[in-house]
């Protein structure tokens, strides 16, 4: 279990993390979601005692991480896969970590096996691809067989196979009763992996709820139907009090399940070519929520804005 209590980190005049309080529970994957620069990595570093909070504190299993007797057994963390000395072999890197915590040496072989790195154990890390580095980071995180795992943007830059592997891996860890805390700036990724979401923007907590609730709250579900007798269907639906819109050749309606639309059409003898439920994109929901808290806005020039690039000079 991870607890953040009023965590705050100030760099100069900028609040990178602003009074964050949350709890990460065992047995589920908790997503830590926020746009780039929202303070996710800083928060994770503070949990590990790498960065000193300006105020507030973080507890892991009830105590500050830095007080742990066997730190690698408390938390396994993968912050940045490239945070290693490239001149060392994978095995040497893991051996150093295992020795420092007094972990048995066979753990090194076990985690190499677990992450499929046994074959490259004697290779120097600087020759590793990002995917291999990521696996090495996970191997290091698993060394102490910890109850709490923390991954910072673990799927960034990975190929689909690697992404799938990590996703399944995190799920299996949580299913085994561990606490899994994983950050991402991609809502779609979190929707697939996380059971619970902690959403931050500009260092502030924006949401702390189940992923399903988050999606339900932040995205409207609509039903789309395509029919050669669209007008007839629209009238039938209007009689039931359901308003429809024409969108891209479909009728779009909300507040009705697909079953009802299908039944209605059948009872009136209306032909249907397509009928499906559609969620407004999760990314859209996420962007809506974090709109005011995005650190760096990219200006999208539009004709209406009237400003021509370079023309203002």
């Amino acid at each position, binding site marked *: 279990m991870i607890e953040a209590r009023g965590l705050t980190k100030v760099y100069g005049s900028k609040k990178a993390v602003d009074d964050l309080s949350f709890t990460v529970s065992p047995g589920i994957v908790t997503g830590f979601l926020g746009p780039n620069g929202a303070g996710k990595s800083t928060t994770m*570093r503070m949990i*590990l*005692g*790498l*960065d*000193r909070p300006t105020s507030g504190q973080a507890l892991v299993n009830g105590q500050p*991480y*830095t007080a*742990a*007797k*066997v*730190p*690698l*057994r408390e*938390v396994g*963390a993968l*912050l*940045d896969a*490239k*945070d*290693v*000395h*490239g*001149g*060392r*072999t994978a095995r*040497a*890197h893991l*051996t*150093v*970590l295992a*020795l*420092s*915590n*007094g*972990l*048995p040496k066979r*753990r090194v072989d*076990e985690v190499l096996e*677990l992450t*499929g790195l046994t074959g490259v154990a004697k290779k120097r890390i600087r020759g590793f691809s990002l995917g291999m580095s990521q696996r090495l980071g996970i191997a*290091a995180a*698993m060394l*102490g*067989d910890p109850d709490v795992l923390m991954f910072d943007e673990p799927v960034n830059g990975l190929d689909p*196979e690697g992404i799938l*592997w990590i996703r*399944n*891996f995190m799920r*299996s*860890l949580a*299913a*085994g*009763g*561990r606490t899994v805390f994983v950050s991402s700036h991609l809502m779609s990724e979190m929707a697939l992996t996380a059971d619970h979401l902690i959403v931050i923007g500009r260092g502030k907590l924006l949401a702390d709820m189940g992923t399903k609730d988050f999606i339900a709250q932040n995205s409207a579900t609509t039903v789309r139907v395509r029919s050669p007798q669209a007008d007839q269907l629209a009238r039938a639906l209007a009689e039931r009090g359901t308003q429809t819109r024409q969108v891209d050749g479909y009728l779009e309606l909300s507040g009705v399940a697909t079953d009802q639309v299908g039944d209605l059409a059948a009872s009136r003898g209306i032909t249907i070519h397509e009928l499906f439920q559609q969620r407004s994109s999760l990314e859209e929901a996420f962007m809506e929520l974090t709109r005011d808290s995005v650190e760096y806005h990219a200006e999208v020039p539009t004709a209406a804005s009237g400003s021509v690039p370079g023309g203002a000079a």
Partner: protein
Amino acid sequence: MSAPVAQRPQQQQAGGVTFVNVLRAEWVKFWSVRSTAWAVLALVVVTIGITTLFSWGISESYDQLDASERSDLDPANASLSGLFFGQLVIAVLGALVVTAEYSTRGVRSTFTAVPRRLNVLAAKALVLAVVAFVVGLVTCFVAFFIGQLFFASVDIDVSLGDPGVPRVIIGGALYVVGCGMFGFALGTLLRHSAGAITTAVALLLVVPPLIGLIPDALGGEQISKWFTSNAGTHIMETVSSTEGIGPWSGYAAFTLQWLVLLVIGAWLVKRRDA
């Protein structure tokens, strides 16, 4: 790629982050990069090589030296002349032991595994000091005997039994340790390889001969006498070449200087974000 399985082996025994465990880890870490072995080899080769050339040169030109030059010649000290360059090699290694952690950001893995940062620093320092001493001692012994081989040709050689000679050789090893620690302290302070190495070279090699230029009214002579290598090298002399400073008082002053830097550096390492 096999399907990921997060099996849970029963909780195994683990000793925890004791100092001895951290020390073992730092020992393996020290030797697990190639640059360490190269640096150690360079220390040995440079020191012995320069000593060989220098001793050869002295023995060749001994006939042309006048009486005062001959009496100033300290054959034991002269046989360690290669340390003039060897000191830089060990200082660079000392700096890199720390700065490589920061430049590769491996320091985050290190401090995640061992949150008690001063333990890491102490273990690193101890590993460096032990290696520097052992390698330094072997190097100084070999250099000493090679030097004396040349000096024997002009009959000015000394042996281990002569007064002060064992202390000179052990002193050479201790001086190597001090130079390594100088680099190490600067590494913790600056966290930057180039900065730490440049500063180490400046403090050990460039500034010492120049610092005497400070006017005596401002204590130039005293400052110069006690400044880093000016003070530290007296431990490698059978007879002190500077008045008012002995082998051990000089070495103590030298040690105090890197110790002060290291204490400030350690305080910063503990305080700063990794």
